[in-house]
């Protein structure tokens, strides 16, 4: 039976830090996790009390790889 231990300490070639943990014992998945380990930025707090015309300019900074979709 398969026993597998995968521990990817951060995935590369993507925006953001994420780890993958997979633990398989005797063909059974015991654990399967994607961990987001990067610093939270709190965008919902950034936009509190800001003028409406700033919002798309601020939210487009959520992700540099997908700035246009983050904007919406």
């Amino acid at each position, binding site marked *: 039976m398969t026993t597998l231990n995968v521990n990817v300490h951060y995935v590369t070639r993507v925006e*953001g830090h994420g780890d993958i943990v997979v633990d398989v014992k005797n063909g059974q998945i015991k654990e399967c996790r994607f961990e987001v380990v990067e610093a939270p930025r709190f965008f919902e707090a*950034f936009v509190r009390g800001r003028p409406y015309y700033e919002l798309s300019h601020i939210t487009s900074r959520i992700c540099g790889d997908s700035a246009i979709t983050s904007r919406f």
Partner: protein
Amino acid sequence: MTSNGKPKVAFFDFACCEGCQLTVVDSLQTHLDLLEAVEIVQFREAISDRGEDYQIAFIEGSCTRQADEERLRKIRAQASVVVALGACAHTACVNALKNLHPLEDVRRWVYGDQAEWYDTYEARPISAVIEVDAIIPGCPIDREEFIRVVKALLLGKKPPLPDYPVCVECKLKENVCMFHIGKFCMGPVTRAGCGAICPTYGDGCEGCRGFIPAPNENAMKDVLADAGLTVEAIMARFTMFNTYLVSARKADGEERR
């Protein structure tokens, strides 16, 4: 240095959107010769390698938690040259907007009952924690400026950083002043180097590159007020990208008083 004499370069990120690193990848596509001059040993957004032996470190992102400080110091201890890559590392960028609210509220608004799972403190530029040798301002960085800075570093020179405002570059582009067409612009107090890209495409400068040395804040506020902005709207223009700098200048002014 590697045995072939090429300096080893690493890229790191903290709280940021990684758009500046994307701009780096983009710049390198048109400047393949630069890739011949260095060896990139770590760059999570672009490669899988994870070399810990490097001389030049480019750091994107703000320091937003205690754990970041330790990682920053480790990078500083290894690298002979540390470059702040982009506004998040240079001025804390929009990350510092959360500094305007009590941090307890900030965490609760976003994560509710699980607020305590998410460690954070006031966002700050990396220069608040470690010494920085060079800066590439902007949100995102200007790709041509990135190339200029890298070339200067490879020649052992201090990279040029304009100390004049965006207005200078805007005039050279022969743009009509934003204030003359009913728009608002932070160009008079913002550090140049972007080629006045926003006014050139018809939008007022938002100040993403931080302030020029000794900006005349009061004169800028008067200009914005004359153009019709309320006090709140003027402060919003100042704080959108530069909350950290505005707070630091205020604290500095109070200390001198």
